[in-house]
């Protein structure tokens, strides 16, 4: 079988698997988010935590829950890393430096999983499994909880209540993330991913050399790292490391896992709003963007477009693994940057200008195709609100989406949402470029070096966590700046989403008339895709022109 046919087959198999799980997983999540019944173990958790899981909350109370949980998580994770040498299973690791510990805590709580450290030489096993991996679960669940509140904003009428944060959080962890992770972790171990508590083992090779192998509970962390679109690797090389991703099958499975919740949530949305066609329209836009991006990155990498290194070497294999090759690496790169995952099985810094530039552009789209768990869907719903608004302007009608009027108040929240991330990315990159010391952290020079800085802030503010890893970002300045970018990039948008949810829930739905814009037809799919590209393109074009575009044209 040749490369091209094999490459296509793995994509077809992936799309097929996602299509098969779309309905059952989407409907299951809708049930979890709407069922009035609590499990017994959930009641126990509510009792221990001392929360009232039956009390329907106003959007502001819901938000306070989200923020309190995040704040406590950051402090807890910070303390955990600082004190790791006093704890069990530290395998001799020292306390993490204060700025790095802050950056890492912010990173994992915000579902970013940006890593300014190398796992195998920084984190003990207990921090990895009971600190970092716990945030992999709960940060993913918080994303889904917030989108659930937004969907309730559309479905409810004349109320100021959008659900209960503690119930949403607990149920998503226990009924969605935990069972899937458990099964998939076992499949990963059966395929070669390690799961042990060994420290560093030293062995002598047949050539007389020495090798120190770091063990760890990797498979259990790997499963939720992909499923929860977290992306923080146990090892520095992340999913390129053979212990995290030993063969092409595990690679395919990891891509599937990082996409599956994002692509199934539109079904949950359609089911909850009582019109599944609305969900199909959203998933169609996601699939369109994802497929185009896969095509662009794969073509760029296969043909070594504008890459002097690629032409010299005879192919784009720098930073890629032999067992995966170009096709499986490009597929992973696109999927990880279009979700908020940020795990990597190959190193984007060494991609062609077109391929690497596309991975930045994917994140700039706001990670909505399909996006991070929950955050992808609320991101694209905000853009749908903007698309409906634009259409309303064209015909001079008050826009409505799913029966809810989009007035000045709603549009303000949507606009603030859209402005937040670009402001963080562009201001952050601008300041970094203006400071000589921070500029010197670039590994490559010129346009490519600028791309490294732009990538870092784009990745942090969009909570992706992948990197053009040449940038030496483990400095006090970058640890602090990127940590703040992650926190604001995560929680400010959530404030606007929940405020919008509250505002929508209060409305009485307006009846559908002949003048209502249908939001389930191909026309709307095209409109939404165009609005996404125009909004993002106009925002970021100047920055992209200085980085990947300049390098590609050079």
């Amino acid at each position, binding site marked *: *079988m040749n490369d091209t046919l*094999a490459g296509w087959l*793995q994509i077809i*198999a992936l799309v097929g698997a996602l299509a098969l799980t779309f309905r059952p997983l989407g409907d299951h999540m809708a049930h979890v988010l709407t069922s009035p019944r609590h499990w017994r173990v959930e009641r126990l*958790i509510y009792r*221990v*935590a*001392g*929360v009232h899981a039956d009390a329907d909350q106003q959007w502001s109370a819901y938000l306070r*829950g989200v923020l309190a949980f995040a704040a*406590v*998580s950051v402090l807890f994770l910070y303390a955990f890393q600082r004190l790791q040498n006093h704890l069990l299973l530290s395998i001799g690791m020292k306390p993490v430096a204060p700025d790095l510990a802050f950056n890492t805590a912010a990173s994992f709580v915000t579902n970013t999983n940006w890593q300014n450290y*190398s796992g*195998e030489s920084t984190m003990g096993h207990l921090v990895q*499994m009971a600190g970092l991996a*716990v945030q992999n*679960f*709960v940060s993913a669940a918080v994303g889904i909880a917030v989108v659930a509140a937004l969907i309730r904003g559309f479905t409810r009428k004349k109320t100021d209540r959008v659900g209960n944060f503690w119930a949403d*959080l*607990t149920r998503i*962890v226990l009924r969605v993330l*935990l069972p899937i992770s*458990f099964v998939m972790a076992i499949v990963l*171990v059966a395929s070669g991913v390690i799961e*042990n*508590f*060994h420290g560093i083992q030293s062995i002598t090779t*047949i050539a*007389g*050399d020495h*090798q*120190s*192998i770091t*063990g760890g*509970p990797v*498979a259990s962390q790997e499963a939720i790292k992909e499923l929860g679109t977290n992306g923080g690797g146990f*090892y520095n090389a992340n999913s*390129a490391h*053979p*212990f995290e991703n*030993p*063969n*092409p*099958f595990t*690679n395919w499975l990891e891509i599937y896992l990082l996409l599956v919740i994002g692509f199934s949530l539109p079904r949950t949305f359609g089911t909850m709003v009582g019109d599944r066609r609305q969900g199909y329209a959203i998933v169609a836009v996601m699939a369109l963007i994802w497929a185009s991006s896969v095509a662009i990155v794969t073509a760029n990498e296969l043909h070594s477009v504008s890459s002097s*290194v690629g032409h*010299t070497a005879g192919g*784009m*294999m*720098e930073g*890629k*693994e032999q*067992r995966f090759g170009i096709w499986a*690496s490009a597929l992973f790169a696109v999927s990880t940057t279009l979700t908020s995952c940020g795990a990597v099985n190959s190193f984007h*810094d060494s991609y062609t*200008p077109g391929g690497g530039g596309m991975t930045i552009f994917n994140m700039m789209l706001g990670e909505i195709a399909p996006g991070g768990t929950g955050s992808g869907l609320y991101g694209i719903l905000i853009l749908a609100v903007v698309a409906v608004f634009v259409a309303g302007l064209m015909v001079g009608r008050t826009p409505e989406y799913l029966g809810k009027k989009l007035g000045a108040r709603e549009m303000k929240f949507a606009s603030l949402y859209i402005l937040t991330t670009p402001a963080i990315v562009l201001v952050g990159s601008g300041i970094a470029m203006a400071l000589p010391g921070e500029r010197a952290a670039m590994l*490559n020079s010129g346009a490519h070096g600028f791309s490294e800085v732009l990538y870092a802030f784009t990745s942090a503010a969009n909570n992706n966590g992948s990197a053009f890893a*040449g940038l030496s970002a483990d400095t006090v300045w970058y640890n602090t700046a990127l940590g703040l970018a992650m926190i604001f990039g995560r929680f400010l948008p959530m404030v606007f989403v929940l405020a919008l949810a509250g505002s929508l829930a209060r409305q009485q739905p307006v009846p559908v008339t002949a003048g209502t814009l249908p939001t389930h037809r191909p026309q709307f799919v095209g409109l939404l895709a165009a609005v996404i590209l125009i909004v993002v393109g106009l925002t970021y074009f100047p920055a992209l022109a200085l980085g990947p575009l300049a*390098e590609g044209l*050079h």
Partner: protein
Amino acid sequence: MNNSFRNSARLAWAALRALLVLTVVTGVIYPLAVWGVAQAAFNDKANGSQVKVDGKAVGSSLLGQNFNLPKKNPNDPKETAQPDPKWFQPRPSAAGTDGYDTTASGASNLGPTNPQLVQTVNDRRKQVAEFNGVSPSAVPVDAVTASGSGLDPDISPEYAKIQANRVAKARHLDPAKVAQLVADHTDGRQLGFLGQPTVNVLQLNIALQQLAG
């Protein structure tokens, strides 16, 4: 003011308790359950797919390693390690100073137009061609590029093939037998369509050692 402070404190206390109980569930019970099943049912894989020769672990079939000549002066940081002609050589590696450092996995991260990387690729092509006695155009891409993990256990079948004659010569073996060994250790795509064909360098070298006796 007092009241709102008390409410915030109560909320933070609830959040902390929720975090702790979820930590027990997802950070202790879950990984221990996976560990238990993994150790019971897939012991070999869960512990890193170790490769043993005469009962002694010599590496993991998943992790690449160096097959270099011993350094003349191990304390000289400037001396670069030289490949040993008696072994099949892995891909270049950016992990650690000498490559294949399992405590520093990672890639070069050099950009696609970086002149330094272009130079490195040209140097590698020249070195590999001379070392194996083949023409520079016969050197495949994986022989001149560093992998993502720096621990890539595999090379392409093409890279293994161009090394076979040199290895046979260095060990005074029949070249046809070494070529056959390469063919035997060439793995096709997984399930017929996933990934790329590979040759696992460590396993090939162990088989080579056994062939040489």
